[in-house]
């Protein structure tokens, strides 16, 4: 991948929230033009923090270190004004809950048009309707006058995608875009995301759902990347013990991810020595408790890498 075609380049990103939680501990990942990357992990592992950092939505008082280069600019070094100029135009965002993404007082039309108005221009005539019809909403011209509560979750999420991609952003960040939708809709939405984005960073806890839609998968645990490989490779042959457990996990709607492991993720307000997964790892050795494993061939595990 040449530099010109790298849309997102995060290097040794370290983020600590004002309340002392060290949510990201030296995370590195890259997304190239036309590439789709999924960040997988349990809740609390830091994947949402990655999204917030890229967008610049971290609470004031957060401490950051490292770099996060989006389309050529290191967003960590940008002023708030400059960062704001990237939002909506260069970086797009789709959130989990479609209803929470819409202002209930406005019609859907006005909500989607806000994607243009927020950056100081007007949507070209007919553009909103055309965008929604492209995303599979029939009879859009009449429907957009309605208020969000009258639309279904799936339709609203399409509208949210239309708003997020209004300016063809170089990078689209989707944070659990299908968690609030049922399985059938979820794959439709994922296909839409595939078709509308130049480069996609999708955050989710459901590996199986996204595996067919993305090129690479990055597995996140306790603020660190433990595996970073091609999607098909990971699904067929997961190498890190945590990834293996994740893939074996069963997703039941409405319940938290049932990863078949004992114990809980570590407390992120404390420093972690050694591998963050070691306390729960079925194959951990002495070395795992004292030395943090680096990412080698896409896997951060002493046991796996030593085996060769």
């Amino acid at each position, binding site marked *: 991948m040449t530099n010109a075609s790298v849309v997102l380049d995060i290097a040794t990103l370290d983020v600590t929230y004002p309340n002392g939680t060290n949510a990201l501990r030296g995370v590195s990942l890259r997304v190239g033009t036309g590439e789709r990357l999924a960040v997988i992990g349990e809740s609390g592992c830091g994947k949402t923090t990655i999204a917030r950092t890229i*967008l610049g939505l971290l609470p004031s008082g957060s401490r950051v270190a490292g770099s996060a280069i989006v389309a050529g600019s290191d967003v960590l070094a940008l002023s708030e004004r400059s960062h704001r100029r990237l*939002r*909506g135009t260069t*970086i797009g*965002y789709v959130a989990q809950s479609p209803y929470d993404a819409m*202002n*209930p*007082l406005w019609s859907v039309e006005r909500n989607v048009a806000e994607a243009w108005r927020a950056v100081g221009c007007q949507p070209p005539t007919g553009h909103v309707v055309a965008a929604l019809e492209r995303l599979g909403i029939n009879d859009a011209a009449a429907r957009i006058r309605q*208020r969000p509560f009258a639309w279904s979750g799936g339709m609203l999420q399409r509208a949210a995608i239309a*708003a997020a991609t209004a300016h063809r952003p170089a990078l689209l960040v989707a944070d659990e875009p299908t968690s609030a939708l049922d399985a059938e809709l979820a794959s439709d939405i994922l296909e839409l995301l595939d078709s509308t984005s130049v480069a996609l960073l999708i955050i989710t806890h459901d590996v199986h759902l996204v595996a067919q839609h993305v090129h690479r998968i990055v597995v996140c645990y306790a603020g660190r990347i433990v595996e970073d490989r091609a999607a098909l490779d990971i699904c067929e042959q997961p190498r890190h013990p945590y990834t293996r457990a994740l893939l074996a996990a069963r997703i039941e709607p409405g319940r938290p991810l049932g990863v078949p492991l004992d114990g809980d993720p570590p407390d992120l307000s404390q420093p972690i020595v050694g591998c963050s997964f070691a306390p729960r790892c079925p194959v951990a050795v002495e070395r795992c408790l004292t030395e943090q494993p680096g990412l080698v061939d896409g896997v951060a595990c002493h046991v796996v890498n030593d085996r060769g």
Partner: protein
Amino acid sequence: MRLWRPGLSRIVQLIVTLWGASVVIWSMILLAPGDPARRLLIARGIPDPLAEDVAAARRELRLDQPVVVRYVRWLGDVVRGDFGASWRTNRSVLSEFGDRFGATAVLGVATMVFVVVFTVPMTLIAARWRERWPDKVMQVGSSIGTSLPSFLVSLVLLHVVVLEWGWGQVLSDGSVGSVWLPASALSIGVAATWTRLLRGGMVGVLDTSLADICRSRGAGPWRIMTRVALPNALVRFLPFMALTVGALVGGAAVVESVVDWPGMGAYLVDAINARDLPVIQAYVLLATVAYVVTANGADVLARRLDPRLGIER
């Protein structure tokens, strides 16, 4: 306008409640100590009536008839707009109110204007610099503002600002020029309450994912506050805000009396001092109707604007 159409069940409830209020308000006169006929004559300025005067007064007040009948007749009159005659002046209560309604209306409008002018900027500032010193100052100011009784503020303003420092007119003639004094006194408490409510409401919106989405579309903080947070907070708290306006009615009467504002409130206070019961009854009834209609109107409007508050049936 579709926005204002209340549901059928609400209208029915409204009528029932108002009817109940009319019962309570009318029954208040039964609590008055002493002989009503004598009271009427005393209010008329005849402290030492003869027996036949008292008898005539008794007939006038229909005191020989059972309580229920008296209530029903009163209600019948009221519904047709006849609130009886003032015991002091013998003029119809409605025309006495009519003479003074304009001044009270001017005061009411001016007060609401002051409230909005105080509240909106303070709320925006407090939300924009949340937890920093402008916000803290606003919160302190808000606490102090709700602790300043309006009659006291009007008294202090009158004696310090007008009489001592010589600003403004001494005589409150009901004109727009002199309304600033009573309007300021009345608006402080309401503005303080509204600021606190709306700041909380706005902060509630700013912490949601809706605000994050707006930011992610490139909107700046002021745009989010004025176009999204404030309207949502306003709609959500509209019913509460209407309730605080209701509390204003009593305070307005006292303030009008303090500064000698030629409005209905000062007239009420005079009537209270003279024990002119028909005036008191009529005032409370009209104020209640206005209050109930306003509160329900605010509720209907809020539900229409934001259906998450519950559908109007």
